[in-house]
């Protein structure tokens, strides 16, 4: 390990597709819930109660453990105004923090620009997964997107040292020369050089890492293990981003949702354990969000797109517990007669993370003042 990672770091986990918040934190004693969810329902004997009204889906047992240890903050009823229930518009809004117009700059890309204004470290922001999410994209701000940590970089497959060195030198020459030859070639040239510097920094990551934590074999566990490996190498990354897909449970939800719960809860708790083992858990905050919740009523097999949902903040530095109120389940209070109403604006949570984790001024990024919460230990 080169340096001990000491700066506060944010890890964002995007649960893509619209997680069913009601079947994650289940209002297991509420009659309205059972009235609305005839089939796609989690029964009282399938929850791990956290109080007399709410219980964590039993498939997410590691979340119950984190909750009991005070490392999990549950944000109830988060959302954005005037949802049109589109995944794309929804994700766009979450990525750019702009519900009123189509934004182009990602909220975390803007944070990277603030954290590293001279673009000195291409690893200040790291995405783990295929394709850079818009949340991390701002023109001119280099962030590293790692589809495959072992395969990151170029000319990886050349084994002979002399040839590999020459190949890298040639690549660097070709991409370097492109800078200044026109806007697009310029951009691609710079990106090529960023790949080289990122790859140099990431090259040692695999060798440096040792852990007794055994992550499960699934995509989100693999991604968070990669986050741990990079973070523990002390390369100066302040923002990590990764996605876990499959939450768009229109059909067969009772077959598919349990595995998502198992995988994501296991991956996050293993990740935190891994940091703990390395004495690196004090400064890492995990934020898990989804673009929207699901409809109150099920459709017999799954649930359709809804609005208000929930988000989660995890970490040793977190003041665990419930934040906000569980949205009212009374049909009289439903939005558009079928949805949970949100009452926490997601921009307030972004502001909380930007200012309380990253020490970045939130106002220019979320475009205004939104009420923050205090989910961290003093």
């Amino acid at each position, binding site marked *: 390990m080169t340096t001990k990672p000491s700066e506060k770091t944010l890890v964002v986990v995007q649960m893509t597709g619209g997680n069913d918040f009601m079947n994650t934190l289940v209002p297991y004693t509420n009659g309205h819930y059972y009235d609305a969810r005839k089939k796609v329902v989690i029964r009282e004997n399938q929850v791990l109660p956290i109080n007399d009204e709410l219980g964590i889906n039993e498939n997410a047992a590691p979340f119950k453990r984190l909750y009991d240890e005070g490392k999990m903050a549950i944000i109830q009823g988060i959302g954005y105004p005037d949802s049109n229930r589109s995944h794309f518009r929804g994700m766009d809004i979450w990525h750019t923090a702009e519900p009123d117009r189509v934004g182009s700059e990602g909220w975390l890309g803007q944070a990277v620009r603030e954290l590293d204004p001279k673009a000195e470290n291409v690893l200040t922001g790291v995405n783990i997964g295929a394709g850079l999410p818009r949340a991390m994209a701002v023109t001119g701000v280099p962030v590293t997107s790692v589809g495959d940590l072992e*395969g990151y970089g170029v000319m990886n497959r050349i084994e002979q040292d002399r*040839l590999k060195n020459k190949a890298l030198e040639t690549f660097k020459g070709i991409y370097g020369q492109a800078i200044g030859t026109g806007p*697009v070639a310029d951009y691609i040239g710079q990106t090529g050089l960023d790949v080289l510097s990122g790859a140099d920094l990431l090259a040692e990551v695999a060798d440096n890492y040792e852990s007794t934590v055994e992550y499960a074999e699934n995509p989100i566990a693999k991604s968070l293990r990669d986050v741990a490996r990079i973070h523990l190498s002390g390369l100066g990354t302040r923002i990590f981003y990764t996605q876990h897909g499959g939450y768009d449970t229109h059909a067969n939800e009772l077959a598919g949702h349990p595995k998502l719960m198992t995988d994501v809860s296991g991956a996050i708790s293993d990740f935190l354990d891994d940091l703990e083992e390395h004495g690196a858990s004090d400064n890492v905050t995990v934020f898990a969000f989804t673009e929207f919740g699901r409809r109150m009523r099920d459709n017999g097999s799954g649930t359709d797109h809804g609005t208000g949902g929930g988000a989660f903040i995890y970490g040793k530095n977190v003041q665990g517990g419930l934040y906000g109120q569980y949205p009212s389940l009374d049909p009289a209070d439903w939005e558009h007669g079928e949805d949970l109403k949100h009452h926490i604006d997601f921009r307030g949570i972004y502001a909380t993370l930007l200012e309380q984790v990253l020490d970045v001024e939130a106002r220019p990024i979320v475009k205004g003042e939104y009420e923050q919460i205090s989910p961290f230990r003093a």
Partner: protein
Amino acid sequence: MKSDRALVAHLMRRAGFGATPAELDTLAQEQTYEDIVEDLVNPERFEELDEAYIDRYYSGEPVALHVGKWLYRMVNTRRPLEEKMALFLHHIFPVAWGKSEHGPSLYTEIAMFRRVGLMDMKTILLELSRDPAMIFWLDNNENHKDEINENYGRELLELFSMGVGNYTEDDIKAASRAFTGWTFRQPLSLYPNGHYPAEFEFLEDDHDYDSKTFLGETGDFDGEDIIDIIVKQPATARFVSRHLYNFFVEDELQVPSWKTEPAKNEDAIAQLSKVFLETGGDMRAVLKEMFNSDWFKAATSFKKVKSPTELIAGVLKQTGEFSYPVPGIQNFAITSLNGSLVEGPLAIMGQRLMNPPTVEGWHTGHEWIDSGTLSERVGFVERQFEDLSKPGVKDMVDRVGSLDDDPSQLVDRCLDLLGSINVSEQTYDSLVAYAKELSSIENDDVEGSVGVHNLLQMTASTVDYQFE
């Protein structure tokens, strides 16, 4: 030589997915450029691929397999423009299986694009409006006489034909009313038969037969009447022409800015729009005008970024690995690693074919490139060109010659073989220096792993190779 080899290479890249060195030899020797254009816009002159033959080797329902089959078609079709137009329509009428009733409705949609892509705009929009995948994607099955759902009506005008600023909210409502009752049905029950493609269905009882006013015209319009009115609008001619220019000629700004930003070549757009209006939006006529224009021929020097599909299909055409339906083509979409399914190079490069991110489609041009996607682009060509047992790779290596040859000639041949690529002078010099170095390394190489393929890999890793 009847035509210029480099120009034909450019045409075949833009109007299709490139050509092998042997194909280019034949085309340039035997046909004039204009004749080649005629062949491209008249695909029925050539035999179609045998669907049953492809299905025999690539059978099953997974989306990845269908993406693989589509790549197979791109690589092997004798009607390249037909396949390229299907991709074009998938870009501008993007439907994702992530919200499709079931896979087959998406596959039949792509087959429909292939069938109508070179017809007239009325047929294209009519088929689109009757397409089950599109109906479900934009909720037209929820568009009822008593309760209209504007999703399809809005996107038809905003994204599929005219562009924002050319109609009012009332026009959207009128168009939506005209499409009430346009829905689909399942010919066989889903269980226990499995998935069968859905079929268009018109529900007379659910159609609004009242009078409507749309773009200044009033009548008892149904969806077809609306499309007739749309197709004769100059705004439609311009919007579609800009899309064609953006896809085939030169990267434009992203579509939402078109309302305010002028086209890069206004004269070209005017020229295409004129043909569009004169021919009722006949795609053959418009494309023929485009391919034969001086500005298209000059576009060899434009920096148009290859989409991941263009890059991958182009490389696969060159390697020849899939000139027969051998197993594994679905791995370019989804592949398995250590027992779990992971996304393949198409997705890692940012284009999940048949699963576009939004109804706006993919952001193209330089937005295809970030550090992760570029890393994968370079890694992909490295992997594809290292295996000399692939017939296309072997052929190219044979054509390049020996590393003992003059290094400039070696580089010239590589550039030519990979599609007459234009590179900057500095890149050219770097490649020549690399060729020299390779020759010296080869002489000291005991394992015999260094060779001409390394130069091909490097040539395909350049900045210039990222451009069409």
